[in-house]
């Protein structure tokens, strides 16, 4: 079950710096571990995380096999205008989750 948690302020003043914090449910299987029969467990990780704010990509991150399961990603952005913040996780085996939060800028 794809499942993410996003914690972001609902409102902000124009020009204020806000923090967006996210948790995504994902095993982040490295591809280097051997299974019970000695064969490698195939890699299954989140490859990319991106955040767009008002249609512009403001934060993007590539993830590697060294990152732990259920990755926690936190970053800051400057509140400019009221608009949707779209968070997107994509990865191996067609993993794709999108979550939208709206920031009200006064």
């Amino acid at each position, binding site marked *: 079950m794809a*499942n993410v*948690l996003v914690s972001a302020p609902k409102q902000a003043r124009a020009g204020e710096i806000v923090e967006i914090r996210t*948790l995504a*449910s994902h095993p*982040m299987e490295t591809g280097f571990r051997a299974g019970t029969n000695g064969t490698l467990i195939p890699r299954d990780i989140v490859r990319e995380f991106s955040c767009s704010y008002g249609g512009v990509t403001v934060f993007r991150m590539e993830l590697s096999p060294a990152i*732990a399961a259920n990755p926690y990603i936190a970053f800051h952005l400057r509140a400019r205008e009221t608009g949707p913040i779209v968070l997107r996780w994509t990865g191996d085996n067609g993993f794709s989750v999108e979550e939208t939060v709206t920031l009200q800028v006064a």
Partner: protein
Amino acid sequence: MRRIAALLAAVFVASLALAQTPPADPRRSGYADMAPAVRAMQDDDAANPAMLWVAEGRALWSKPEGTAGAACATCHGVAERSMTGVAARYPAWAPAAGAPATLERRVGLCRELHQGRPADAPGEARARLALLAYVALQSRGLPISPPADRRLDDARAAGEALFERRLGQLNLACAHCHSDNDGRRLAGAAIPQAHPTAYPLYRLEWQDLGSLQRRLRNCVVGIRAEPWPADDPHWVALELHLTHRARGMTLEAPGVRP
């Protein structure tokens, strides 16, 4: 003269008050010995990975399932009200099983009997863990209060004996580490007093949420003993003893441990 008498009386009263303060509780939750970063992770719901399971559990709570087409909410209503304090008193007697049961077994029984679902795979079924985390959250901050139920006495006594009994190739009992050497270190890891204050919890070593039974299985394998099958009465007996030992301590579930 009168002033001296008053002073003496005051000193006497103060010394009485001192003598009456109960000694500080020597029991420590594993939380107290964690690194500040891990503690911060547990304290902050936006950073605690166990909250992912809680979110799944919340969704499952009101989802009709099985041949009965019933959701947990059909019988139990709002979890925030009906499940308050439930996790603090388990393991408890389960009439459907005619035996003491852990909370995850009880959740599983409910799903089989009242929802008419096929039984979950034994052990750590994801949906059962998610519901367990959601139910446990409703008791966060409450004292652990095992029920005074005479039907649990035999199993609790068996658990206490088991805690002291040597097992496995390393020939160690639980007590050898957790009562005799708690607070010291085993290689790099701190030895806790083994109070189950935060289960189910997210263990960084597992990169996963796990129940108390999984943690106990870990310890049993660690002393090179053969673990009992999932949901075996031995696990329930041990849990009964551990919750009795930790009675009155605050439940932190769902916690984070290194």
